[in-house]
């Protein structure tokens, strides 16, 4: 049975997406005093969803570039809105990342959260549903609904269980993303009406929309609208200022899901929608996108070096890392795109793991200041090793996942210009500086701890959580083949689609230029057998 036939028999994607939400509702009916039960059910649901999602890679047809397990149903007929879900090689890994990270979040909040646990667990599961929805929705309206919905639980998670300035951070987070999303909605509507005017068919179906290229002069405006929505989420410089605040005040699991999953929504949307729908604008504005990505890589890293608060440090490092991801997308070659998607997954794993480890120590000492720690390695060797491995992965040390993503992005950047590659290299170097320096200050030297009691090394639950992430780090680092393999066909299709739309839209714009454009390619031409 092909994945699509399976989906006709039972809606795999909907089940995976909405099972967490169902779990959330179930949890709300439990007795609030029964915290153990709530925890176990939260973990159980997320674990079950994760195991269920493993069904996807096992039956995924890697040679088929199209969407798989497609579900399509009419939702609001008069506006051409559909319930349209599907997964291809581009989103598959992100779906898995989401279900995996949610399990990690449940484990991370095991002893951390005691206050209003029921609502907390429910909100997390709800976040999972919305994020999965974003990665699977192929109808722009449905996508927008999930995109906006994911904001709500996150705002509450920061605002209720957060740190000192939780209200400020939650509201800042909300306003930034919300304003961005409004522009995005305008962009979506523009695409919708444009398509309706040109073809007479009013629809939000992204696969249909992608078939009719948009005139380049319209593309620019839509691109800017989409850009405002997506770039805030990524976040790209200069829209990143909400991120450090949100991270600093979010509870540990909130930071994990924010860094690992929510930031990827933005980069994913660029790949999924901006590229195929707006190829001419993407190409035309690529220099601008590359420019701010490169700037973010260096600027993010320099700001990171200056941080004194570990959580803030990790937050700023995300700005730099997401710069790599954005660069990979806009250098327009297949290596860059692949590296970019790999780097989304890697950042999800590594930065998620950094926040997780940070949370473990914060739970013990209630301080996040680098200056409050020295020589931890002696007291907590297991923790030290875990932190080291994750830090190395985050700085892209060969044999860890980070390197695989980085080398692809580096090759992609080099194909565009050697100068980009040099900036990337400097970014990598600075990454090593802040992470290694952090490690050195916190873990090496003589141990001293002035707080209550003595610091205990990781317990069984924490060790298992950390080990599962470390396993992934080395798996991707040493044997990346399966991960790269799934995206091949879909990325090739995406590249062809972008090329095709680019040419057709060009013709629409100017007949005299059309012939000149027809011979051009957007992506670095593929030649040779090495790929």
């Amino acid at each position, binding site marked *: 049975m092909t994945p699509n036939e399976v989906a006709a028999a039972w809606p795999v994607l909907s089940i995976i997406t909405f099972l967490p939400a169902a779990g959330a509702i179930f949890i709300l009916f439990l007795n609030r005093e029964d915290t153990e039960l709530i925890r176990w059910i939260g973990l159980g649901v997320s674990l079950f969803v994760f195991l269920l999602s493993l069904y996807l890679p096992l039956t995924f047809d890697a040679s088929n570039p199209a969407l798989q397990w497609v579900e399509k149903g009419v939702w609001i007929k008069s506006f051409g809105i559909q319930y349209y879900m599907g997964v291809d090689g581009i989103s598959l890994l992100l779906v898995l990342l989401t279900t995996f990270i949610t399990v990690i979040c449940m484990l991370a909040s095991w002893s951390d959260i005691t206050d209003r646990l029921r609502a907390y667990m429910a909100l997390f599961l709800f976040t999972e549903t919305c994020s999965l929805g974003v990665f699977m929705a192929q109808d722009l309206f449905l996508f927008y609904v999930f995109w906006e919905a994911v904001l709500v639980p996150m705002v509450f998670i920061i605002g209720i269980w957060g740190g000192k300035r939780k209200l400020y951070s939650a509201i800042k987070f909300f306003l930034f993303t919300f304003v961005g999303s409004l522009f995005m909605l305008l962009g979506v509507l523009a695409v919708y009406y444009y398509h309706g005017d040109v073809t007479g068919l009013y629809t939000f179906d992204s696969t249909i929309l992608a078939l009719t290229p948009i005139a380049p002069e319209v593309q620019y405006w839509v691109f800017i609208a989409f850009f405002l929505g997506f770039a805030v989420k990524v976040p790209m410089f200069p829209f990143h200022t909400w991120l450090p605040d949100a991270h600093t005040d979010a509870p540990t699991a909130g930071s994990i899901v924010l860094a690992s999953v929510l930031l990827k929504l933005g980069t994913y949307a660029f790949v999924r929608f901006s590229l195929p729908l707006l190829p001419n604008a993407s190409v035309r504005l690529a220099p601008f996108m590359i420019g701010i990505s490169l700037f973010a890589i260096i600027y993010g890293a320099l700001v990171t070096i200056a941080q004194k608060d570990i959580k803030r440090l990790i937050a700023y490092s995300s700005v730099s890392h997401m710069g790599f991801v954005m660069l990979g997308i806009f250098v327009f070659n297949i290596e860059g795109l692949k590296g970019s998607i790999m780097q989304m997954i890697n950042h999800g794993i590594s930065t998620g793991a950094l926040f997780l480890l940070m949370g473990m120590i914060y739970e013990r000492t209630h301080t996040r200041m680098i200056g409050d720690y020295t020589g931890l390695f002696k007291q907590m060797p297991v923790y030290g090793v875990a932190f080291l491995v994750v830090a190395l992965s985050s700085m892209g040390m060969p044999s860890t996942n980070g390197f695989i993503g980085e*080398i692809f992005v580096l090759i992609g950047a080099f194909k565009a210009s050697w100068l980009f590659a040099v900036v990337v290299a400097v970014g990598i170097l600075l990454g090593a500086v802040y992470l*290694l320096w952090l490690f050195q200050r916190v873990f090496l030297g003589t141990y001293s701890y002035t707080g209550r009691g003595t610091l205990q090394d990781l317990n069984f639950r924490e060790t298992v959580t950390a080990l599962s992430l470390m396993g992934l780090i080395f798996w991707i680092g040493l044997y990346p083949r399966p991960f790269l393999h799934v995206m091949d066909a879909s990325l090739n299709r995406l590249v062809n689609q972008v090329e095709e739309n680019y040419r057709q839209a060009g013709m629409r714009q100017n007949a005299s230029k059309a012939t000149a454009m027809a011979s051009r390619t957007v992506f670095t031409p593929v030649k040779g057998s090495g790929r």
Partner: protein
Amino acid sequence: MIENVLNYPILSTLIFLPALGVIVLAFIPGKSKEVLRTTALGFTLVNFFISLVPVFHFDTSTFKMQFVEQAPWIPGIGVSYFLGMDGISLTLVLLTTFLSIIAVLCSWTAVTERVKEYMMHLLILETGMLGVFVSLDLILFFLFWEVGLIPMYFLIGVWGGQRRLYASIKFFLYTLFGSVFMLVGIVALYYSHGSITGEYTFNLLKLYEVVYSYNLQWWIFLAFFLGFAIKVPVFPFHTWLPDAHVEAPTAGSVILAGVLLKMGTYGFLRFNLPLLVDATVAFTPYILALAVIGIIYGAFLAMAQSDIKKLVAYSSVSHLGAVMAGIFALNQQGIDGGVLQMINHGISTGGLFLIIGIIYERRHTRAIADFGGIARVMPVYAALVMVIVFSSIGLPGTNGFVGEILILLGLFKASPVAAVLGATGVVLGAAYMLWMSQRVFYGKVTHPENEALKDLSVREVVTIVPIVALILWIGVYPGHFLKLTNASTAHLAEVVEMNRSKGKVHEMALTHKAYAEEQAPSMGGHR
């Protein structure tokens, strides 16, 4: 490339046996220190014996890669798991497995804290170093290159002296700085090979097959140079070295001086010379100048040191300058001498750090002024030390002499001025080493606390004797060793020579090509 004559993956075994040792050590409780030490020793010993196997099956008549293993690794960008070995790799592999044993032995009593982690780091380091010397895929090479950094960082940062934290991060960041640019160079090479042949690959042997434009070679050379020169270290990139050496524990210094520095010179031999011949020829005068400055400057600095370990550290700058000078003489004698001197320096400087470690363990000082007349109290020690000192000076009969004479021969052919200046380095080397030995070993016992020093224990003798034996073996009969590398060095010299003879023609052809390209209408290109 020659098919693997052995029917099993000998190189993978070599690389990953120490890694297996790490896993085994992980399961031994940290308290049973003797067991940990013995296990680590066992693994390094076995690995040494395994590294002897290729020697017996090695075909010395060819420069081609032997015992190759190849398997695809990262699809899409042409990265493969590709190992192989020629004469140069073989001698360096032997040096690595040999010094790894010495490193474990010399930490026997010196390291008592966290023995488990310490031994694990030493073994990871061995894996990394061996991987560097036998990788024939550039990404794989880069992987091992970087992997070796981490255990060394810890060896210095955790078991080091007082300023260990500063020294370790300086070491790490300096090296990383160079290697990141090397990575860009690797990608540049990959990209150009791909755009010339249509095949995108990191396979070194395939990259060898293409002649790159001079302009490109120049930039790639520069990128590689940064990576390798910092590691060697070539003057003026040497400032991390004395810090790292002074703070490192004895075994760390032995490995650092003995093997890690050689990764840099090896990189020049394996990549810069054969891949980027035109650029190599163009850069040679400058590199020779830096090498000669390194020789003399390092020697003067060494002379001024009052700490024995620092003295030896600076002497490394001087010696590695000589190695660089030999390699960049670009003729067979020079390259032969350079390779042999890499081995010699590994043995004798490793030996020097070892003997410093021994005395430091007894007295907890390394200041020259704290010693004097040690030969009276520790005659066996002093006798063995003198052999190593002679080897470091390059006295006839020791290995150092053979290497130095070959380098000077080669260098003289290439540039008499450089040879003369290089020779003064030899004189200076004799001066600082002999002056140091005189102050430490001869004369009266000036410090009463030195009266009761014990002479070497059996373990210590067992550690030093193989080094002394090697010194004399290479010194008296270098043929055994030169024979291994001969085919490879001859090939390198030939590649450069062929290029030189047609250099002018080639250069003109290149300009013509560039001119033709300029004249041709733009082919559209991408975007």
